[in-house]
């Protein structure tokens, strides 16, 4: 059963609208371009390009075949039309599929990373130099198509944790890659996953051995720099039996007039009793206030949870012109747990169609979905979720809560919950609310001495609290700031 509970804000013009109009002026602060020489493939996509990428990376045969199979399959597919988003058709021959900053063949230490690149990450608040590194967080920095640096590699190695760029892992641990690549998101999965499987250039790889609790947070920071370049990264995280890991992902891109495509695939494997917590703060360039430019973020994220394993997705989505993303969990083993906590903000002309899929296969599996959508300006925010309880999944339980907040009267919120329950013992609960940011609430806070902006950000933070508390500390702070900036002056 599917339903579109579309709620458009009522056509009432109020004080807040003027403020909204004013605020939308707010600018994207991560929009600079790094001037760096890049090694790029020619525009367009064909078998030659795929062989070029694979050769550049000196890949083993199994990987080239994976790419070629994916490409062959992709050619039979058509772009999906079902999401509640609107954009001009993408010309896939106008995109550059590989761009790497020119640097020495193999880096042995961070000192060899191009200073321009290090500076870029500093500006973004992600220092990579050892002395300035974020305490307790290991960072893998992906610049355009390739991983440029990974911090704390040695510390992790001592714990038995493998963490670094995908390309390196292909050479160092080919058997792990061959075993797990495409095991959760097969290359046939969907249009963008197929495309990614054919052309992905780099990303992060992580393996936590049996019984190991990863000693620090792992983090990948994605940066698109080059023009007309698509970013197709691939992340693969494997937590072996009883292992635990918390993984953070952040993203930004320069301001450019044309739209840029980002089509990533993230695969998580949580073996028996393992736990993976995956947190994202997505802040790709959203386009300007007229809706020009911005990243198209079409991402496939999925985790497989074996017996008594737990996978938890937390995301704060404030960027991208269009977001199309449904982090999912396949609850394969008995007693497995899946969680999805999401805040999605759309401002100006941003569109987001995001949600999750929880597929209950094992017995006594449980899932929780908490989704908070905030729409401002002309933003359109859709929640799309699927909860499926398979016939064998006795006593499966799901709780879903989807709350939408509207700021102003030109935006919209939509929810598309799909629920499929086979068998009599599944319990699925779905709650949805929509509220408009209240003039009376704002007045109450201002009467206590808070500025209009602080009052609004307090209300929004309150609205998102259940999600923010799932984020690791440093990320929660960043997320709050980001939300504040993205809505600056937008409410009143």
């Amino acid at each position: 059963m599917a339903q579109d509970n579309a709620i458009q804000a009522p056509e009432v013009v109020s004080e807040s609208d003027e403020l909204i109009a004013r605020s939308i002026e707010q600018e994207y602060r991560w929009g600079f371009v790094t001037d760096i020489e890049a090694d790029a493939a020619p525009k367009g996509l064909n078998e030659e390009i795929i062989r070029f990428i694979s050769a550049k990376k000196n890949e083993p045969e199994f990987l080239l075949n994976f790419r070629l199979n994916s490409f062959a399959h992709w050619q039979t597919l058509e772009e999906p039309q079902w999401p509640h988003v609107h954009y001009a058709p993408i010309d896939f021959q106008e995109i550059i599929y590989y761009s790497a900053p020119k640097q020495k063949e193999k880096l042995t230490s961070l000192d060899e990373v191009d200073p321009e690149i290090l500076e870029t990450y500093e500006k973004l608040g992600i220092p990579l130099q050892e002395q300035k590194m974020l305490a307790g967080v290991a960072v893998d920095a992906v610049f355009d198509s390739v991983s440029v640096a990974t911090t704390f590699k040695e510390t992790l190695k001592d714990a038995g944790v493998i963490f670094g760029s995908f390309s390196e892992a292909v050479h160092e641990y080919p058997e792990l890659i061959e075993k797990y690549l495409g095991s959760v998101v097969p290359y046939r999965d969907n249009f963008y996953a197929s495309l990614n499987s054919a052309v992905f250039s780099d990303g992060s790889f992580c393996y936590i051995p049996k019984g190991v609790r990863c000693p620090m947070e792992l983090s990948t920071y994605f940066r698109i720099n080059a023009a007309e370049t698509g970013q197709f990264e691939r992340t693969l995280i494997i937590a072996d039996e009883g292992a635990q890991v918390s993984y953070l992902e952040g993203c930004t891109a320069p301001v450019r007039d044309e739209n840029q495509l980002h089509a990533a695939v993230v695969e998580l494997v949580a073996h028996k009793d393992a736990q993976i917590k995956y947190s994202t703060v997505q802040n790709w360039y959203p386009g300007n206030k007229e809706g020009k430019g911005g990243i198209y973020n079409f991402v496939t994220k999925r985790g497989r949870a074996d017996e008594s394993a737990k996978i938890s997705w937390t995301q704060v989505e404030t960027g991208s012109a269009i977001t199309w993303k449904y982090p999912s969990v396949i609850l394969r083993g008995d007693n497995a747990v899946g969680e999805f906590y999401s805040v999605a903000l759309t401002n100006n002309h941003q569109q987001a169609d995001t949600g999750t899929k929880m597929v209950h296969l094992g017995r006594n599996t449980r899932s929780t979905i908490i989704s908070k959508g905030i729409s401002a300006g002309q933003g359109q925010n859709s929640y799309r979720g699927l909860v499926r309880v398979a016939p064998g999944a006795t006593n499966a339980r799901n709780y879903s809560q989807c709350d939408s907040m509207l700021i102003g009267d030109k935006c919209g919120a939509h929810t598309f919950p799909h629920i499929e329950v086979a068998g009599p013992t599944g319990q699925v609960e779905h709650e949805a609310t929509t509220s408009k940011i209240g003039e009376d609430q704002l007045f109450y806070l201002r009467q206590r001495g808070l500025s209009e902006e602080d009052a609004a950000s307090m209300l929004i933070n309150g609205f998102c609290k259940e999600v923010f508390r799932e984020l690791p500390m440093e990320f929660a702070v960043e997320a709050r700031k980001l939300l504040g900036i993205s809505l600056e002056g937008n409410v009143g």
Partner: protein
Amino acid sequence: MLEVKDLHAEVDCTPILKGVNLSVRPGEVHAIMGPNGSGKSTLAQVLAGHESFKVTGGSVAFDGKDLLTLAPEERAREGVFLAFQYPVEIPGVSNTYLLKAAVNAIRKHRNEDELDAIDFLKMFKSSMKLLDLDESLINRPVNEGFSGGEKKRNEVFQMMVLNPKLAILDEADSGLDIDAVKIVAKGVAQFRNDNNAVVIVTHYQRLLDYIEPDFVHVLYDGRIVRSGVKDLALELEEHGYDWLKNSDA
């Protein structure tokens, strides 16, 4: 301290306040009474700067400043506090978090240093005790799921913490049980001093038994039709507003 002159205000083109005059000096307590719908809350909200009400005439001076040109938060920082008749719920935002932000916003305005968590705790403790509010209530989201009486006591608590120059209490006593009325009165008594002033909107003599007003005003159809000392409240209690209507009309 507060000088309201011939204040006119309307909502959606309907005049509500039709020429209110009110003068409040430091150290005074004023009670404003009057029938339902006469404009008491409107007056309170207009003084606090609610944008739904349009001021169409008159003036309001506060400590010599033109209050009507200030934004609500600026008025609050200058020392105007309104305890709401219907306090709104703020989901996900704890009372303490709001109060810390408010105290620091006000301190910043006065060029004072921000307070840290320990200072706050000290600041909260005595008022919490006086108002018989327990810790869990203070840490819960603002007004969410509070009982009617808890909401009112919480408003008075916020007043005590923020320590304004002028506190306007809009029916801080309605819906309170007998003990709670005493508690609220205790809070107000503790708050009062020679430098601040209190305007109490109420329907009942009860609260005024504990907080003796210097002046009592009757607001009727958007105007103050009668002002007097505390005995006026007793007379109203006895005769109701018809008595006024008959004697004044």
